[in-house]
């Protein structure tokens, strides 16, 4: 019973969008094509090489698909944080603070754009293809891991997004920074982590826990050794990492909101 309000808020948002009759189909298609474009890059790359960091084309596609689906889900909810600078600059963030609800869930429900489902659809399609074409020794645990991975990944991305956007409470153009971090981490996680150079790897794989979105879960599913030397069970820890990331993001957000200063009028 606790939170039946959020579906209602989302519903309200969707009805608002209907009132403008945006071309849903067109937007949806654009998103699918955007996703396919990145796919094309990988496919072209593999016409030149046979393996990337020791992974075959389909294995890389699996990582890419996990990352894509996770990013799609995160985008659906946390993508609304794009509007945060506007909320802050115009002072309409005041209204969120007037209500007996958390500010973060309110923003997340504020401007859901269903066309973003296009991205998720694209990710899921590639995921289906890759899963059918890589050698996996299936077990019930691995089925659970397969389902949990995009969800945990979405939570990790969203947490990164929240932390990056929290800077908007101090920096006027925090959005540029936030976009760089989030889209950057999406690009990073779409490829095997071991292909990157060391300093970048450290930051993007472990501090921003990007390697836990797709890379480690994929290793666990494939039953492969980590070329970077971490033990096999690490691939099963993504949900835990996601929970930690979410908790950290929550703390950062709370701290940031205390620095909200509103506008002079």
């Amino acid at each position, binding site marked *: 019973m606790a939170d039946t*309000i959020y579906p209602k808020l989302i519903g*309200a948002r969707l009805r608002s969008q209907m*009132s403008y009759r945006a071309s849903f189909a067109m937007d949806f298609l654009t998103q699918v094509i955007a996703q396919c474009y990145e796919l094309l890059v990988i496919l072209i790359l593999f016409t030149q090489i046979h393996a990337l960091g020791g992974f075959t084309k389909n294995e890389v596609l699996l990582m890419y698909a996990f990352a894509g689906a996770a990013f799609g889900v995160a985008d659906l909810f946390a993508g609304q944080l794009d509007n945060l600078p506007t909320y802050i600059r115009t002072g*309409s963030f*005041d209204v969120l603070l007037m209500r*007996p609800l*958390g500010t973060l869930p309110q923003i997340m429900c504020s401007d859901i754009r269903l066309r973003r489902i296009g991205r998720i659809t694209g990710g899921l399609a590639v995921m289906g293809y890759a899963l059918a074409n890589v050698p996996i020794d299936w077990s019930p645990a691995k089925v659970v891991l397969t389902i949990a991975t995009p969800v945990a990944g979405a939570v990790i991305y969203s947490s990164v997004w929240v932390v990056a956007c929290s800077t908007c409470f101090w920096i006027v153009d925090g959005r540029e920074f936030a976009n760089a971090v989030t889209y950057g981490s999406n690009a990073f996680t779409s490829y095997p982590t071991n292909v990157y150079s060391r300093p970048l790897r450290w930051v993007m794989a472990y501090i921003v826990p990007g390697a836990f979105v797709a890379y480690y879960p994929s290793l666990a599913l494939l039953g492969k050794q980590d070329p970077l030397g971490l033990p096999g069970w690490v691939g099963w820890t993504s949900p835990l990492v996601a929970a930690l990331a979410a908790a950290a993001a929550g703390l950062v957000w709370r701290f940031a909101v205390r620095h909200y200063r509103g506008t002079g009028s």
Partner: protein
Amino acid sequence: MIEVRELRREFKVATSKGLRRNYKTVTAVDGVTFGVEAGEAVGYVGPNGAGKSTTIKMLTGILVPTSGHIQVSGVDPAKERRDLAKRIGVVFGQRSQLWWDLPLKDSFDLLKSIYRVSARDYGVRLEECVELLGLQELLMTPVRQLSLGQRMRGEITAALLHAPELLVLDEPTIGLDLESKERLREFLKDINTRRGTTLLLTTHDLDDIERLCPRLMVIDHGRVLADGPLDELRAEVTPERELVIDLREPGPAPDVPGVTAVRSEANGMRHHLTFRRAETTAAQLITQVVRQVEVHDLAVVEPQIDDVVRKLYQREVAQDVHR
């Protein structure tokens, strides 16, 4: 209901001079202390930039104070914002809490869910507001199509659906025409006296205060200049009252000790007299006047609230000069 002690809020603002970026600190609220009892109606006034909105935002948990103590409705707004939000209603004249693209009624329905108002309470409260504020025709209109006055009535309804014990309003009558203002005042007066909802409102229209708030608080430069019953403040800063008499026949002003004739109009048919309220009562004065001249009509004029506030500001300036 409200307890505020030594409340301060500073803002760091950038002042760019050439390439160097400097920061200076603006103190918007500078050591404000006051209390409001349940059921009161308090007017919070002051010139632009005085710190009214900043105070209100701290009281409602929107801004975190730099220092000081606040308790509203038994909770600390910055720490228990969500708890507080359930107990108070907030209206900003300059901001909307309604869903812009949806019919007004949809916003009310959403707020019902947000505040978990039971269907029964919701029905009763909504009907009351709709009736008193004349919203019947507007419920199905998208908010963006409402006029300012219509929207403001919607905003006030929205703030009252969860039956808050305190209603805080920041410039609720800004931009409204006389009739809309009057209607709003009537309504607010009603919920204050009949339902016992505590009111705290800021305004630049001092008629709002005259009609609604027995108590006036004046703030400038982030400090409270005066706080007390409107009548007392009036008596304190404008000790003189005015008596206007219309005579039957043109003639000189009556000569009563302790009374100054300020001016006469209409060829000596009307005279304005001032007297100090501490020295004589209006009744005594009138008895003496009618003994001397034949009076057609007379009226005691209280100083305008604008004059009271202006005098309070001037008093502060004078004190600053003394220091």
